[in-house]
């Protein structure tokens, strides 16, 4: 964390005196969005607001309405009701203007061309007024994508890379990514998350969907959960992380008494077995660490907090008890 005064020196008020933080308009603003496919209703009055410069995770099981919502943003699908603004514009009337400023990765990317990835990406770049070949090559290198192969012979993972390159290459103000990490191996997932972080560092916005929280939890500022066409929750990821429970195992040089740890703040499911303490810590492990420090600690293991469990069980319960309405 930089010191609080840093922005006084490094973020001077721009000339003309405009305020940097004067409540910018949301980049995506959705109110009461409904969508019917014939008699089937896919979205039931969705409300969602994505702020400029944030990474927003859009979560939910398959078939919950994530892709439908995303397609409405790009005017591929027309809404049945409600209001939608993307970059301040209505997709129904300003689709072309919106798409010029947005990079989009389809959830189910199909590439059938016999031509090479380089050729396809140059063409897509030309539809946007041209993207330098060097920029395409740089992204391809980062993602380890061979540009000289015909796209239709590419594996699922490599096709996904082509999709990512075309979404990122023109440095759009807003990236809309539908299941971006599907098909990528863990190493490339990490590279992708770095690219997302760079986009955020430049003040641009990322809206990405996933059916699993773990794919977005490391990078998202906020996340929303959609289920059966309804928004179930919007959460600040830091707050969620603070609430998250982690498993801790501590081994001491000598046996310890269970009573020492039983009443510590946030500690539950305590098991003491001679010199080893196992427990679950909710929120900060501070109290546990300080108590443990009274003894000689040989080992200290802490598993990643499982946000997934917390996130989904919490909201499933709430929804089923009729609380979320």
């Amino acid at each position, binding site marked *: 964390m930089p010191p609080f005064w840093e922005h006084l020196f490094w973020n001077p008020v721009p000339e003309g005196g405009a305020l940097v933080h004067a409540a910018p308009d949301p980049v995506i603003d959705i109110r009461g969005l409904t969508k019917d496919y014939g008699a089937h209703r896919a979205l039931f009055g969705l409300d969602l607001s994505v702020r400029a410069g944030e990474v927003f995770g859009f979560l939910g099981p398959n078939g919950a309405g994530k892709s439908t919502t995303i*397609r409405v943003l790009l005017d591929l699908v*027309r809404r049945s009701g409600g209001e939608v603004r993307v970059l301040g514009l209505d997709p129904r009337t300003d689709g*072309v*203007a919106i798409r010029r400023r947005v990079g989009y990765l389809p959830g189910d*990317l*199909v590439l059938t061309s016999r031509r090479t990835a380089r050729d396809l990406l140059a063409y897509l770049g*030309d539809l*946007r007024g041209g993207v330098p070949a060097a920029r395409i090559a740089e992204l391809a290198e980062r993602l380890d994508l061979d540009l000289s192969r015909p796209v239709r012979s590419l594996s699922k993972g490599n096709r996904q890379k082509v999709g990512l390159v075309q979404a990122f290459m023109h440095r759009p103000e807003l990236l809309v990514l539908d299941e971006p990490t599907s098909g990528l191996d863990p190493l490339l997932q990490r590279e992708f998350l770095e690219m997302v972080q760079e986009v955020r560092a430049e003040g641009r916005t990322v809206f990405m969907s996933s059916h699993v929280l773990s794919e977005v939890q490391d990078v998202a500022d906020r996340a929303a959960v959609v289920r059966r066409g309804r928004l179930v929750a919007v959460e600040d990821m830091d707050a969620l992380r603070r609430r998250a429970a982690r498993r801790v195992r501590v081994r001491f040089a000598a046996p310890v008494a269970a009573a020492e740890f039983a009443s510590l703040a946030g500690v539950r499911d305590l098991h003491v077995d001679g010199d080893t303490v196992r427990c679950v810590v909710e929120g900060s492990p501070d109290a546990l660490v300080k108590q443990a420090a009274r003894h000689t600690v040989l080992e200290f293991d802490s598993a990643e907090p499982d946000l997934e469990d917390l996130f989904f069980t919490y909201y499933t319960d709430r929804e089923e008890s009729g609380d979320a309405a």
Partner: protein
Amino acid sequence: MRRSVFGRFLRDHLRALVGWGVGVAAVTALYSAFWPSMRDSSGAMDAYLESLPQGLLETMGWNSLSTAEGYLGATVFGLLVPALLVIAAAVLGARAIAGDEEDGGLELLLAHPVSRTGVLVQRFAALTVFVAVLGAVVFGTLLLLGPAIDIGLPADRLLAASTAVALIGLVHGAAALAVGAATGRRALALGAAAVLAVVGYLGHTLARQVEELEWLRFASAFHYALEPDPLANGFDPAPTAVLLAVPVVLVALGAAAFNRRDVGV
């Protein structure tokens, strides 16, 4: 030069264009190559034709196989070349929107700063060029073979007839494109073009014999293209205008429906 939707679509179908071009040239050359022997045996041929029922002759357009325009009109321009052009154009027209959508490629294209009408119009333009090239192949083949087989027809009449069959193709290609754009279904697009072609062909041939079916000819691209007999009479502006206007209207209707629906679901 910047790549456009138009150029890309045409380039993506260059192989198909070469394939169809070779086929059209081969059929044109094969049939017209029989002309010299046909003319030499015209006495026997005419005698044989006279033995056939008059109705069949009119239906098939075999009225005068002993003249070059009669022979070419009945063979090259009567059925096979129009059929090839209709199939080529309908397949491409069905691919242009509906096929691309069913394959999953259209979603990515329409996520770029292009309008749906723009994509439709550019691909229609590519279809027009595609069909025009095939028409030019018919014309070029006859022009090249003409002296060798002694067709003896002036170039402008060959051009008028080639244009007429190309326009038959364009009408059916535009129908497939429009239905595909309106529905997003390749099978429907091809089906619509096939129905139009069958009805049109019957309207052109059978309706000559059956009075009750005469109205069909107004829905027949074959009628507008071939009834004025361009091989004998050259260009006829009125039916040519109809054949040019119909695709434009079809594409306009297709664009209106395309702009109102969801894509890729």
